[in-house]
C-alpha cells in the first residue's frame, strides 16, 4: 500500500471501486458479445446450407426431415447415413452413435455437427422429437406445412 493510496479520501475509494468494477464488467460484456457473434452455431435448413454453406469444420446445426428410404446402416452396425430434406434441397448426413429413440424416417431431426468439403454433413449429435414435452426448439414449427414458411423466414 503506497502513501498515495493511504491518502485516498473515503469518497475516492468508493469511486475507484465502482469504476474498477464497471471497467471489468464492460470488458466482460464487450468480449462476450464479440465471442457470441463468432461462436454461436447457426441453424440451417437444407436449402440454406446448399445455397450458402458454412466454412468446412465450423460447428452448425442442420434441421429438417429425414427422407423416407434414405436411412442406411453401415457395416460396423453403429454408423448411419441418411438424407435430410426440406422439400427443396437435400443434404447427406453421416452419424456414428446411438440414435435418439424417436429418430425415424419421415420425421424431423436436428443434427449438430460440421459440413465437410465434399458436401456431406458429419453429425456429432442428433436431436429428435422425444415427446410432446421435448422438441428441439428449431423443430417446433417444422411440420410439413410450415417448413416452407420457415425457410422463407430464415433466408432473407
Amino acid at each position, binding site marked *: 500500500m503506497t502513501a498515495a493510496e493511504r491518502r485516498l479520501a473515503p469518497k475516492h475509494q468508493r469511486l475507484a*471501486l465502482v469504476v474498477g468494477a464497471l471497467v471489468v464488467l464492460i470488458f466482460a460484456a464487450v468480449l462476450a458479445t464479440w465471442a457470441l457473434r463468432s461462436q454461436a*452455431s447457426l441453424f440451417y435448413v437444407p436449402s440454406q446450407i446448399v445455397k450458402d454453406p458454412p466454412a468446412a469444420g465450423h460447428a452448425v446445426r442442420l434441421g429438417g426431415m429425414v427422407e423416407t428410404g434414405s436411412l442406411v446402416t453401415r457395416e460396423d*452396425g453403429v454408423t448411419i447415413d441418411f438424407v435430410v430434406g426440406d422439400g427443396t434441397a437435400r443434404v447427406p448426413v453421416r452419424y456414428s452413435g*446411438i440414435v435418439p429413440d424417436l429418430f425415424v424416417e419421415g420425421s424431423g431431426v436436428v443434427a449438430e455437427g460440421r459440413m465437410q468439403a465434399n458436401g456431406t454433413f458429419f453429425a456429432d449429435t442428433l436431436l429428435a422429437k422425444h415427446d410432446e414435452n*421435448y*422438441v428441439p426448439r428449431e423443430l417446433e414449427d417444422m411440420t410439413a406445412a410450415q417448413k416452407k414458411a420457415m425457410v422463407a423466414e430464415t433466408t432473407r
Partner: protein
Amino acid sequence: MIAELGLAALWMAAALAALQLVSGVLAARSDNLEIAATVRPAAVMQGVLCAFSFAMLVWLFARTDLSVKLVAANSHSLKPMIYKLAGSWGNHEGSMLLWVTVMGAAGGLIALLERRLPERTMQATLATQGFVALGFYAFLLFSSNPFERLPMPAVEGNGLNPLLQDIGLAFHPPTLYLGYVGLSVAFSFAVGALVTRAVTPDFARAMRPWVLGAWIFLTVGITAGSYWAYYELGWGGWWFWDPVENASLMPWLAATALLHSVSVLAARDALRAWTIMLGVVAFSMSMVGTFLVRSGILTSVHAFAVDPERGTFILVLLAIYIGGALAVFGLRAGTISEGERFALVSREGALVVNNVLLSAILGVVLLGTLYPLLTEAFGVRVSVGPPYFDPVGALFVVPMLLVMAAGPFLRWRRDRVGRVQKPLILAGVVAIAAFVAAIASGIGVLPILGLALGAGLAVASVLPLRGRNLRRLPLATWGMVIAHLGIALSLLGMASDSAYSLEKLAAVAVGDVTGVGPWQIQLAAVEPVSGPNWTALEANLLASYRGGEPITLAPQARSFWQPVQETTESALATRWNGQLYAVLGKAAEGGRWQVRLWWKPFVTLIWLGGMMIALGGLLALLGRLRDDLRRRTVQRKAAERRADRAELTA
C-alpha cells in the same frame, strides 16, 4: 372438496400477504404500534395457510383425483406412489405453488425468529416479502390455478414424463426452489434495510443465514441436477450449457458473490451499497431463471411448453420487483454512508476482486443464455454452446481461482504480499508440477489449466489450517476451507474428464468382447425385463478392470406406455479412479447390439466436490447460528446484570 379447501386457503393466504404489505408499509411510516403488531402474525399465518394449500395439492396427487385438471394432466393411477407425490411439483402450476409455499414459510420463520434488527427494518422487510409473495399469489390465482376442476372427471391420467420418473429428479426442483426463495428473503432484507437506512453489520448478520441457506440448496441442486443429466440422459456429459442449467447457475454465481460480500459487511462494516446491490441482483437472477424455465420460451426436457400468458406474467413481476428495487436503490444509494476503508491488498480487497469476477462470469453466462432468444426475435436461429462458454468463461474463472487461492491468507484491512508468500509459493510449485505433467500427456489448453489450477488451489485451500489449533478453529473457517477444497476437486474432476475420457461405440453380438481404456467388456445376454409402468430390454455386460474380477452392468432401453416414450437407462461401474459408463442402443444387423461405453477417469470428483462445497456452506451456517445464539445469551445476561445493578443503586 379437498381441491376447494386448497383453493380457499390459497385465497386467504393471498389476503394475508396483502395485509402484511399494507400494514408493514403503514407501520414503517408511522409509530402506530397496533398496526405494527399485525405484521408478524400475518406473515406467520400466511405461511401456515399456504403450506396447508400445498398439502391439499399433494393429497390430491396421492389419491390421483382425476376430477382435477392438473392431476389428470400430470399423473396416472398406476404410477409408483413416490412419483405421484413428486408429480405435484413436477409441473408448472404445482411448482409455482411450491415456490410460494416455501416463500411463505420463510417469511413466517423470519417473523417468528428475527429479533436483532430494528423493528422498523423488520416491518419493511416483511412488507417486501408480502409484496413479492402477492405477485406469485396473483399469478397462481389468476393464470395458473392448480386446483382447477375438469367438467367431467378424466378416465385416466396422462402420466408423467418418464425422463422425470427418477428419484434424483423428483427432488431436484424443490431443492432449487428453496435456493431461489432463500434469495427472495435476502432481497427483502436488502430492500428493508435500504428503505429504513439501516445497512449495518447487524443487518448483514441477519441476512447471512438466509443467503448461506439459499446457496447451500442451490449448490446441492446444481450438483444433483448435473449428476441426473449425466446418468439419465445417457450421453455421458455432465453439463450441456443448456439454458435450463444456466437458469440455476446464474443465481448460484450471484449468491456466491453475495455470500462473500455479506461476510465483509458483517465482519468489517464495508461494502454496504455493494451488498445491497448484489442482494437485488441475486433475486433478479432467480426470477430470470424462473422466467426462462417456466415461460416455455425455451423448450427443453424440463421446460413444459406453455402459453405465452404465463411468461408475460412472470416478466411483468420481474419488471415490477427488480425495477422497483433498482429505483429505490438509485434514490437511496447516495444516502448509504461510506463503510470502513481497506487497502487493495487485504482480505476485503481479495473479496471485492472475487465479487467483480463472479459478476463478470455471471454476465458472460447471462448474455450467452439470452443471445439465442434475441437473435430469434430477428429471425436468425443460433445455438450457443461450449465453444462460447468454455473459453470466455475461463478467461474470468482463471483469475478468480488465483485470487481465491491467495485471499484466505490475507489479513483484514491491510496486508503485504510479502507476508503471505510462503504458502502461495508452495501452492504455485504444485500447480506448475501439475501443469508440466498435464502438458506431457498432450491434452487441450483448458484441461491443462484446470488440472494445474485445481491442484494448486487444493493445496492453497488447506494451508490456512497450518499452525492453527484445529480444535479451536471456528466452524466458519472450516466451512471456507472445505468449500474451497470442493471447488478445487470439482475442477480437477472436470478437467480430468474432458482430457482423459475414452469412448467406444460398437455393435457386438452376445458373447463378443470389446474394450475401452483399461476395461474388457463382454456382452453376456440381452433380455426383456419389466417394471411398474415400463418394459425394457436389459443388456447383461461383464466388465473387468485390467483383467480383474468381472462386474455386472445392466443398461436398459426402456419403453414406457403411459405416456408412450422410450428412454435409455445407463449403467455405471464406479471405482476410486473413475467410472465406466455403459448405454445399450438399438439392435443392429446380424444379431448384434449397439453398445456405447465410456471410461471417465476421476469424473466422480465433480460431484464429490459439489457436495463438499455444500458441506462447507452447512458448517459455516451452523457456526454462524451457534455464534448468534451465544451472542444473544451474553446480551441477555448483561441486560440482567444491568437490571440488577440498577435495582441495587435505586
